[in-house]
């Protein structure tokens, strides 16, 4: 028999033993394992909630940010043709994303449409509204600068935009949500690893005699490690699976409820994004299990 084939057979025989051990341990310590899966599920669930919270806040912030626009009012005596020539000038200012020209007639028409014919009557012959250019900008943080630049253009009477304070507050809010979210996620990640480490440590502690004997009869480190590693991975995986399941149904129900009442709120509900989060949670669960159990078993290998 070649050494390659021999090694394969050796691995196969050891794999049989290892799976037997994992099964035995999972059944024997079922209560303990239940606790480990539960705690992992809880920490991953909170982690998932954190991630969803962050991406939803980002989404809402992005939408509000993109809604910020500058209204540019023309001098009343400016002819519409001259007002129209201003549009490309504004377009050329860096940071400007899109401009829309609203003539005074259009403005009046939409006013009338909104408030009825009395408006038309009270206005009389002379339309008091100015020509307006609606400006969308790419970065709301530059709203001040751009507005000032536009105001300096000839023929501009005044500019108006959503308060600078509001934008500032919004940004500090979204930043805080991101930072707190990240902290929360890191913290909970460590909690999960710690819990799995503790659980595998209990399993290992319950089996320390066995490990000790294994080391004495000449087991390799990996031979001792594998069953615990696999056990940790299985625990982490099932914990994550539970978290993903609960998250999937509760998030779906929550989204449906919110969109019933506040339909304009832009919430993340694309299954592609959700599946990526769920995949991530499963991967994290597996890694947590592996890291936790490796961490625990290390001490007992030093014999």
């Amino acid at each position: 028999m070649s050494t390659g084939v021999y090694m394969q057979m050796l691995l196969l025989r050891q794999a049989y033993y290892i799976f037997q051990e994992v099964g035995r341990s999972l059944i024997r310590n079922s209560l303990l394992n239940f606790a480990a899966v539960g705690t992992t599920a809880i920490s991953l669930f909170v982690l998932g909630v954190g991630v969803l919270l962050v991406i939803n806040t980002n989404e809402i912030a992005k939408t509000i940010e993109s809604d910020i626009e500058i209204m540019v009012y023309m001098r009343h005596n400016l002819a519409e043709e001259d007002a129209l020539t201003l549009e490309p000038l504004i377009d050329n200012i860096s940071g400007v994303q899109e401009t829309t020209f609203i003539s005074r007639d259009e403005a009046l028409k939409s006013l009338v449409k909104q408030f009825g014919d009395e408006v038309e009557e009270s206005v009389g012959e002379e339309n008091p509204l100015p020509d307006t250019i609606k400006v969308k900008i790419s970065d709301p943080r530059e709203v001040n600068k751009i507005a000032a630049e536009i105001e300096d253009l000839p023929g501009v009477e005044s500019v108006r935009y959503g308060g600078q304070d509001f934008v500032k507050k919004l940004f500090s809010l979204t930043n805080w949500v991101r930072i707190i979210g990240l902290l929360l996620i890191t913290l909970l990640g460590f909690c999960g690893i710690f819990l799995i480490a503790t659980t595998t440590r209990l399993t290992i502690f319950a089996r320390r005699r066995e490990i000790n004997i294994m080391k004495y009869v000449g087991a390799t480190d990996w031979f001792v490690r594998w069953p615990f590693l696999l056990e940790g991975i299985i625990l982490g995986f099932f914990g994550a699976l539970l978290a993903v399941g609960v998250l999937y149904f509760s998030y779906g129900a929550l989204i449906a409820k919110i969109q019933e009442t506040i339909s304009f709120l832009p919430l993340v509900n694309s299954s592609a994004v959700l599946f990526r989060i769920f995949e991530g949670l499963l991967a994290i669960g597996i890694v947590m299990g592996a890291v936790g159990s490796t961490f625990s078993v290390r001490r007992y290998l030093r014999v």
Partner: protein
Amino acid sequence: MISFFNVSKVYPNGVKALQGVSLQIEKGEFVFIVGPSGAGKSTLIKLIFREELPTKGQIYINGRSILRMKRRDVPYLRRQIGMVFQDFRLLPDRTVYENVAFAMQVVGAKRSEIKKRVPEVLKMVGLEKRMDDYPLQLSGGEQQRTAIARALVNNPSTIIADEPTGNLDINTSWEIMECFQEINDKGTTIIIATHAKEIVDSMRQRVIGLERGKIVRDEHRGVYANATT
């Protein structure tokens, strides 16, 4: 073959367990290591087994230096040495058969090999009728014989026993020693650390006496204590 060259062991807490020990144990020898508690017997055994590393000196087991050995090679050293302990160290939730088979599973033996070899070894130690019993159903002597079977099952060149009869009455102790003698007759080196004076005295094997970490005597066909002391 086991060779110690000027071996000293100082534990991190400052205890000098062994000081300048040199000795040679040939293949197939039967050696008693005797001495009062704390003389360094257990440390000597731990060094052979590479559970501890010497602070000074050099140790060779079957021609290989313990000091130069890589960590990942240690399991293969241990497969050449069978260990027997005072407290037996059997797994209580496994039968006699499973306890012995365990040692073969760990080194990746074939299942057919295990099925053939385990009953063979159990017969050698006289436990062929107790294969399916659990350790707690056995007497102390039977438990120790199970442990000897486990140490023997992978065909080691050496068996080391640390106080193997410490928990057993004198008759049972004799049975265990006879068991070791039979194994030795088949060519396996036997090293036993013990306090069992009468047994050592009557077996007339090589005796290495340790006191305060030093070899105070090394006699072939020796006894537990010198007539002069």
